[in-house]
Each structure stands twice: as structure tokens, then as C-alpha cells.
């Protein structure tokens, strides 16, 4: 059953945290920087690759207001960090590998003093050859960016004999696809502050996705125990993956440790682009075949990802790309090779869509091209080739909960697809409609961390409090936690308080991989029965009534009668009467993992989209006019957030496919700010019709699946396929910038 956009709208409920955000009041961590904090600025490498010969900070030290200057020698512990491989220096000691690499950090009484001091720093760097291209990085004689070489991570997957299957195919398409570098452009750039505590510990107020994980990395840098660091990382003003890994935290904790004072910083937009992480540019080479009836045969894939200077999330990004290389389709044989490669092109990291979206763009182009070659409708071709639901793309056993045929059928019946127009050759505008189908793994792949801890308690003020380290980053985690708790306990939303984003709360694991709503749902449902029981026991004693005569309701404890119309004991009264016995239930819910011995996901969800674009043959601008997205992600917990995620994902997907690109030359980004880097505005936004398939299998107790990323995963290939249909030729690279459109149009008839 399909939940229509109108049905979702009828269930809209404003988020509890919307007032201060919409009214522009201060609330993000960078808004809360104490006025007496020392300000930290950093001397960064102006060149992409070089050897540090000398560092002279003597003039900087003379600048009035300078409190402390730090170089690599001042790092008391490990001068490196990274989520899986710790290869990114806090401060570079002997080598710089990207423009923006930090070399000297200065804490001063004011931002102006810190900036003046940074300008007085002198660093002599011997330039080294720049590795500005993944292919050049793989050459045998290429300079090694790291001691281990230029291959950051590589994988291989073989199932059957793909070469033989392709030889036997009636049709084969061989193509190389390229994807660009996308910038997160979150509203709030990276920043925050670190406060030394009286007991010698540090409290870190910087947005991140994984408060508990950050503690370990930061403790290693300072050579202290992790429990001497507390991380507060919520709420943040957007991330899209850009704050998934550590950014300003290592230098801030170092200077807080060295000075014993509160230190703060906040990156400018230029710093955020130059020093932060971006989406991995991919080169994807695919040869895909099918027989004359349109059944897929062999599929050979080579993926090369530009990891940039350091590992950060490249291992996981490549793994995810790998798992999505064959999509939801059944091939006779698959042969995939993948490499993430070090270059001096900045740093690539986590980004919504996370490696999958790059290969999904390429694969969905291949599928459309094959369908046309064998004369089948693109939707019919896809339906004909769906893999068994209980088998994952790497052959692993899955829950089988995905609904690819359902979402595809919904979209194939949508008017945008059914009424798609023939391309116009006479008018100024070319029009095209494209369709896509994708699946996405829920949470992290095998090995996780997929589990999550959470507590549900009666708070001091009488509010039922959900607490865990999951982070509110604009995705609606607070709303989801409040809504789920209210529904499960049968109380009002205003009875619920939500405490998220601190390492002092139970460890919910990383707030990434679209897993937050699902883990909240499972955690709250696991904790709720025990809390309910304890609350009723308390009330029973207070009211001298039997438990079975009581129930929870909006505002407090209600008589367990159908005609009851109000509470007989409010939650605040309950809390006041039992000040030392506030019940708290902490649970740990394991994640879903495949039982197979495969580095892959155990549960998948599906989405399909149709997009209509127009291309201006004069100006070479692409406009997305309409879009419909059907997503099968289980029950919709917060319809407003759900719709917002799909609309936002569609817009970000359009950005990735058309607008957003950071061109680079010799390791330098050619855009420095949002005046050159084009994020779509509301004028670019299409009408997006959001359709939800909320049904789950009878035995499915996992509840809602993530919607945060699947929306961009499905949007990019739909837009790219629409552009291809408008132009009448394959889209071999995204974003399709004006130069690319011009080149494609040039090959068409003279207008």
C-alpha cells in the first residue's frame, strides 16, 4: 500500500526544535562560544605537496595577545588521527600532503591577534611533485604520498565468469563514467570550543557524528585516558557527512591542554572547503551485458576513488561503492575491482550517499542503455532483472525486507513516467524523463558498529527522557525520539524530553549511515515496557491502587478505564513524590547484520524515482522540473522529517548531477567559496512528490529504515538518466556543467 504525499502531509507535526531554528536564535555549538575563550587560528600549507624544511614562529610569538603557539613537537601523544587508519596529522611535522594541511596552531586572546600571529609565521617548504590525478597516482614511478604507497584501500569481488558471460551476451555496453567533487556546504561550518574542567578533564563542544568514538581518538592525541574527555556534539547546523570525522577537535584539545584555558575556533567558508572533506570523485569503468530478451548476463566493474591526502572514510566509502556496484539486479556473473587512491587533491571523506551514489549513477546509465538496445521499456527491463530479495549484492543472506519491485511499479505508474514526452528538436528547450531504481544497506555493513545503547527514564522535572549519544544534525532525531516515545508509551509529545549528542549519555554509535531513527525506534521500544512497568508500580504505591487499574496517558497516570478522561497523577507529581527513585532503563539493541561471512549489509531498503528535466539549448542550463520518489523504508515515524529528507536529497542529488562541482588544478580547488561553488537555491528546486511504502513483512520487527541517504542515492541516477534522454546520448560524467551540455549539444543537429 502506498502512502500518498497528501496523506503524509496530513500527518505533519512541527518539530520540537523548530522554533529557535526558524527564528534564527542562537543554539548551535558555534553560537555558544564563550566570549573569554582564547581564539585559535592555524597556519596552513599553501601548496599541495611538500617537505617542511624549517618553521620559524619567533615573530608570531611577539604579537600581543598570543598565549600559545603549537607545532607537531607539542603533541604529547599520537600526532595522528583517523576513523580506521590514523594517518592524518594533528600538525604536520615534516611533510604536507594537501593545500590546507595544518602546520602551526596559535591561541591568542582575540581572533585578530591570532590571525596577525599566523601571518607572522614563516615556514619553509620544499615543493614535491604533485599527484593531482588518480591515474597518475597509480603509475609505478609516481611519488609516494604515504610510506605504504598510493593505494589507500582495494577490493575485489568475483562471482562466476564475467568474461565468459559477456562474450555470450547479445548486447554489451562498455563505458567509463566520472563523478565530481561535491562540497557539503552545511549551513554551520566546523567549529566550537573546548573547556578544561576542574578535575583536569576536557569538555569538547564541537559537532561530530560519534561522540564516544571521538573521545578515544582525542585521548590518544593527548596521551590521556578517554574518560578524561567528554564530547558534546549536538545540535549541529547541518553536516551531510562533513562533520562525520574529526575536524577542528584535535587542534582545539591540544591547545586547551597546553594552555589550560578555554579555546575556540570556527572555520571560515574557505577553510571549510579547503581543509574539510569533500565527496570522493570516482572513475567507474563498466562493461555490462544482457541477452536478446533483456536478461542481464555479465558485469565487469572497475572503481577508482580519489581519496585525497588521507584515509579518513575512504575504506568504508569504497566498500559501500563495491556493494552497490551491481545494484538490485541479478547477474549471471560479476567481476568487480575497486581502489581508493591517495592524491594531493584535498581530502575526500564521508558524504551523504557515501560511495554508493557514484556507482549507482553509472549502473543506472548502463541499465537504461541496455534496455534501449534490446527495445524494452526501462522499467520493464529492471523488473525483469531483480535479484532474489533474500540475497545481497555480494551474495550474502539478507532479511529480504526490501521492496524494489513495489517502488519501481509505483514510479512506473506515475504520470511523469507514463506521460513522458518525446524530445523536442525545434524548441529552445529539450525535455527528458529518467527513471532510477536503487537499494541501500541499512546502517553499517558487517562488523558495524551497528548496535546502540539508549536510556529511557523519568527525569527530575517529571519528563520522560530519552537519552543517548545520537546526534541531532537537522535530520529530525529529536522529533523522531519524541514521537516514537510518545507513541510507544501512549503519552503526549510534550511529556517527553530528548537528550542527545553527548558522550555522557549511552553510546548509540555513530550517527551515520541513515541509522539514527531506526536505532531510536528499536531502543525506545526495547526500553519502554520496563519503564512503563516501573512508572505504574510507583503510581500504584502512591495512589494505593492496583497496577492493572492504571495506565500511562498524556500528562501522567490515568485510570485504566475506557471512559477515563484525564490523569489522576501527573508525571511531575510522580517525580516529586519519589525524588530518589526516578526509574531509568538502559538498553542495548544489537544491529542487523548478515549471518554470512561477507563484508556487506544484512538488510536493504529500496527506492525508485522519476525525474523530468529541461535543457536550455541556448544557455546550456539544466532545470529539474518535476520529480516523484517512492521509498520503501518501513513505517514513517515523522512524516515532516521524512518528506524533508526526500526533498532535500532530491535537491542535493540535482546538485551533484548538475550544479555542484569543485574543479581542481594541480591539487588546488578553483572555487573558494559559495560565490563560485553553486548550491541549488529554492528557484532551482523542483516539485517533488514523495510516496512512502510503509508496509513491513509480518515478522519484521526492525521498524523504520533510514531515509536520510537513499533520497540522494535515487535522485542522482534519475536526473542523469533524464538528461541522457533529453540529449539523446549517455551521460558519462556528473555534474553535467554547461561545458558538458554544450559539448553534447554540439554533437546534435545545428539548432
Amino acid at each position, binding site marked *: 500500500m502506498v502512502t500518498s504525499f497528501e496523506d503524509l502531509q496530513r500527518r505533519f507535526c512541527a518539530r520540537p526544535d523548530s522554533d529557535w531554528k526558524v527564528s534564527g536564535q542562537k543554539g548551535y555549538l558555534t553560537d555558544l562560544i564563550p566570549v573569554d575563550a582564547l581564539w585559535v587560528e592555524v597556519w596552513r600549507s599553501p601548496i599541495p605537496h611538500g617537505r617542511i624544511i624549517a618553521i620559524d614562529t619567533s615573530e608570531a610569538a611577539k604579537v600581543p595577545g598570543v598565549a600559545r603557539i603549537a607545532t607537531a613537537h607539542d603533541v604529547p601523544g599520537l600526532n595522528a588521527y583517523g576513523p580506521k587508519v590514523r594517518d592524518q596529522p594533528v600538525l604536520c611535522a615534516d611533510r604536507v600532503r594537501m593545500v590546507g594541511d595544518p602546520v602551526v596552531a596559535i591561541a591568542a586572546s582575540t581572533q585578530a591577534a591570532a590571525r*596577525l600571529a599566523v601571518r607572522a609565521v614563516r615556514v619553509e617548504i620544499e615543493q614535491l611533485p604533485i599527484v593531482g590525478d588518480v591515474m597518475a597516482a597509480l603509475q609505478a614511478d609516481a611519488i609516494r604520498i604515504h610510506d605504504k604507497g598510493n593505494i589507500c584501500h582495494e577490493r575485489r569481488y568475483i562471482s562466476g565468469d564475467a568474461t565468459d558471460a559477456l562474450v555470450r551476451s547479445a548486447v554489451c555496453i562498455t563505458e567509463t563514467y566520472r563523478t565530481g567533487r561535491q562540497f557539503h556546504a552545511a549551513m554551520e561550518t566546523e567549529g566550537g570550543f573546548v573547556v578544561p574542567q576542574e578535575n583536569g578533564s576536557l569538555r569538547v563542544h564541537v559537532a561530530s557524528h560519534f561522540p564516544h568514538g571521538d573521545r578515544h581518538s582525542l585521548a590518544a592525541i593527548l596521551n590521556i585516558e578517554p574518560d578524561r574527555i567528554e564530547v558534546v556534539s549536538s545540535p549541529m547546523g547541518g553536516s551531510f557527512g562533513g562533520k562525520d570525522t574529526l575536524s577542528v577537535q584535535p587542534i582545539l584539545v591540544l591547545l586547551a591542554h597546553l594552555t589550560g584555558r578555554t579555546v575556540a575556533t570556527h572555520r571560515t567558508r574557505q577553510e571549510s572547503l579547503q581543509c574539510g572533506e569533500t565527496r570522493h570523485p570516482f572513475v567507474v569503468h563498466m562493461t555490462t551485458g544482457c541477452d536478446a530478451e533483456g536478461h542481464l548476463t555479465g558485469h565487469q566493474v572497475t572503481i577508482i576513488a580519489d581519496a585525497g591526502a588521507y584515509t579518513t572514510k575512504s575504506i568504508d566509502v569504497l566498500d559501500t561503492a563495491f556493494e552497490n556496484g551491481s545494484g538490485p539486479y541479478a547477474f549471471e556473473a560479476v567481476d568487480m575491482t575497486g581502489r581508493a587512491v591517495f592524491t594531493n587533491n584535498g581530502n575526500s571523506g564521508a558524504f551523504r550517499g557515501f560511495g554508493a551514489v557514484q556507482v549507482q549513477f553509472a549502473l543506472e546509465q548502463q541499465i537504461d542503455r541496455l534496455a534501449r538496445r534490446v527495445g524494452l521499456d526501462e522499467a520493464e527491463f529492471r523488473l525483469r532483472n531483480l535479484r532474489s530479495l533474500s540475497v545481497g549484492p555480494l551474495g550474502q543472506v539478507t532479511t529480504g525486507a526490501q521492496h524494489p519491485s513495489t517502488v519501481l511499479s509505483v514510479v512506473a505508474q506515475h504520470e511523469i513516467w507514463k506521460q513522458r514526452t518525446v524530445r523536442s528538436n525545434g524548441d529552445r528547450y529539450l525535455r527528458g524523463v529518467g527513471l532510477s531504481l536503487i537499494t541501500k544497506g541499512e546502517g553499517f555493513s558487517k562488523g558495524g558498529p551497528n548496535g546502540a545503547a539508549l536510556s529511557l527514564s523519568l527525569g527530575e522535572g517529571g519528563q520522560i527522557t530519552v537519552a543517548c549519544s545520537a546526534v541531532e544534525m537537522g535530520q529530525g532525531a529529536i522529533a523522531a525520539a519524541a514521537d516514537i516515545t510518545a507513541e510507544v508509551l501512549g503519552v503526549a509529545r510534550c511529556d517527553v524530553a530528548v537528550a542527545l549528542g553527548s558522550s555522557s549519555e549511552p553510546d548509540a554509535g555513530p550517527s551515520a549511515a541513515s541509522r539514527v531513527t531506526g536505532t531510536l525506534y528499536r531502543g525506545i521500544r526495547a526500553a519502554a515496557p520496563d519503564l512503563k512497568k516501573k512508572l505504574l508500580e510507583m503510581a500504584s504505591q502512591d495512589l494505593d491502587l492496583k497496577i492493572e487499574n492504571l495506565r500511562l496517558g498524556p500528562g501522567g497516570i490515568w485510570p485504566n478505564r475506557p471512559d477515563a478522561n484525564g490523569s489522576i497523577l501527573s508525571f511531575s507529581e510522580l517525580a516529586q513524590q519519589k525524588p530518589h527513585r526516578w526509574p531509568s532503563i538502559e538498553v542495548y539493541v544489537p544491529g542487523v547484520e548478515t549471518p554470512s561471512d561477507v563484508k556487506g549489509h544484512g538488510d536493504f531498503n529500496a527506492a525508485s524515482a522519476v525525474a523530468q528535466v529541461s535543457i536550455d539549448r541556448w544557455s546550456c542550463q539544466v532545470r529539474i522540473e518535476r520529480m516523484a520518489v517512492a521509498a520503501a523504508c518501513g513505517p514513517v515515524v515523522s512524516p515532516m522529517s521524512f518528506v524533508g529528507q526526500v526533498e532535500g536529497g532530491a535537491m542535493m542529488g540535482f546538485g551533484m548531477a548538475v550544479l555542484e562541482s569543485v574543479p581542481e588544478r594541480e591539487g588546488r580547488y578553483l572555487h573558494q567559496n559559495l560565490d563560485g561553488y*553553486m548550491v541549488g537555491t529554492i528557484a532551482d528546486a523542483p516539485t517533488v512528490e514523495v510516496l512512502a511504502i510503509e508496509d513491513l513483512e509480518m515478522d519484521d520487527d526492525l521498524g523504520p529504515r533510514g531515509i536520510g541517504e537513499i533520497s540522494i542515492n535515487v535522485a542522482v541516477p534519475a536526473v542523469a538518466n533524464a538528461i541522457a534522454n533529453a540529449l539523446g546520448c549517455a551521460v558519462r560524467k556528473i555534474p553535467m556543467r554547461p561545458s558538458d551540455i554544450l559539448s553534447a549539444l554540439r554533437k546534435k543537429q545545428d539548432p
Partner: protein
Amino acid sequence: VSKDVLRYHVASSISDALDRWKSVDRALFIGGATALQLDWSESPLSEFLIDVSGLGTGLPCERNESTIELCAFSPLERIRQEPLVTHLFPALAYALRHIGSFGVRSMGTLAGNLCWRKGDLRPLLLAADANVVTTAGPMSLSNWLEKGTAGDLLLKVILPLSRGAMIFEKVGYRRLFSPSCVTIACVTTRDDIRLAVGGGSNRTARLYETEAALRQGRKLCRDDLTALIAAEDVMRADAEVTALEKAEIVANVLRGALIQSAFAQ
């Protein structure tokens, strides 16, 4: 120039503004300061800013027998909403819709846009054969831009009421609030054509050779027109599009628009 030591003076009169400008090196007149913000990160700034935004006293727009006069100190949005402009010079109102955002247009002034090397109104008003009144006297916009605008205050822009068809196309990188890839303006009458381009990284200039070719009625295929435009050496590459590609885009716009207007006639 260090951006931490900027000095700022609010001019009390035109003569005060000019005197201040002469008294220091590297002074800069600012109106709404919106262009200043855009250039902040990429070019050396003047260390002395002279705010002339309060010097406009007249109406934003007045009609004479065969012209309309625009007060150069007027905010762009105010001009866009002027009934005289929307009725008598709709191409200008249309062009203004594609410049900045409402907020930027409410601060940025006509003079600021024309004095800014990337100003999108430059090609439109060049093609419209506009004249200007500056503190150096009246002259054609073309002459004023050619001699250089530094040190003069732009007071008025005088637009002849057009008897031809106007084409304005700002080719940006997204639908609105976009930097220009190239901005194209063209005025055609029964026996004449005036064509100007600019915006973004390009020079602002009339394309005289291309005008001549079109005036002669030469049948130009897209490649010939592209080559002609490219040879005028006005287009400049930016991070995304080469100069030759920009010439090709101009050729596409011109061919499309001229064919369309020919059909309309």
C-alpha cells in the same frame, strides 16, 4: 592591503566625496557595498571606503521627451519596481530580476553595478546606447567605461526610449542568484543591431565586428558566428567554461533569439 585596517567615510556631499577621494591613495566609492563583498576574497581592496549611498536625492526615475533618466544612487530593486521602467523599458526590469537576490538588489545601486567590472547591467545599457552624467560631465556610457570610471561619481543614466527589440540573457550557473558565465544584450531595429556582452570574468564590450556581419545580413552558421565572436577577444575563461565555449554560448543565444524574433515579426 590588510583588511583589518579599513577606513570608512560617509560622504556628506558630492564635493566631500570627491575631495576625500583625491586626498588619499586607493580610495573607493561604495554604494550598497554588495560588489565589494563579492570581491572581498579575490582582489586587493582599497583601504579607504567612501560611502556615497546617501547622496541620491532625486527620484529614482524621471521621463523626458525621448529618454528616461535613472538616478545612479538608486538601489537596483527600487529601479526594478519603478512603473516608468516596467512600462517603458521592460528589458531593464527583466534584467534586474536576474541580478542578485531581492536583498542584494535592495542594497546594491545602479552606479555600483555599472562601476563593477562584472556588472550585468553594463552590456544591457551599452546595447541600449545609454548616456551617463558623471562628475566629469555628460558622455556616452561607452566612452565612460572606456576611459575608466575611477575618480568619477556616476550621477545619472539616461536611456533613450528604445524603438527596437531588446534581448537580454544572463547565462548563469543556476537559475537565480548566480554569477554570470556571460551576459548578453542585443537591440535590433529594422536596419540596425547593437550587441554587447559582459558579466563574470569577461570584458564588457560591444561586439562591433559581429554587429557588422549581422547588419550586412550575412548568413552565419553557428561555427562561423562562434569564431567571429571569439575573435573579438572579449570572452574570458573562468573555472568552469573556456572563452571559446562562452563564445559558442553567445552564438547559440544570438542565433536562437534572432531567429525567434524574426519569426515574431
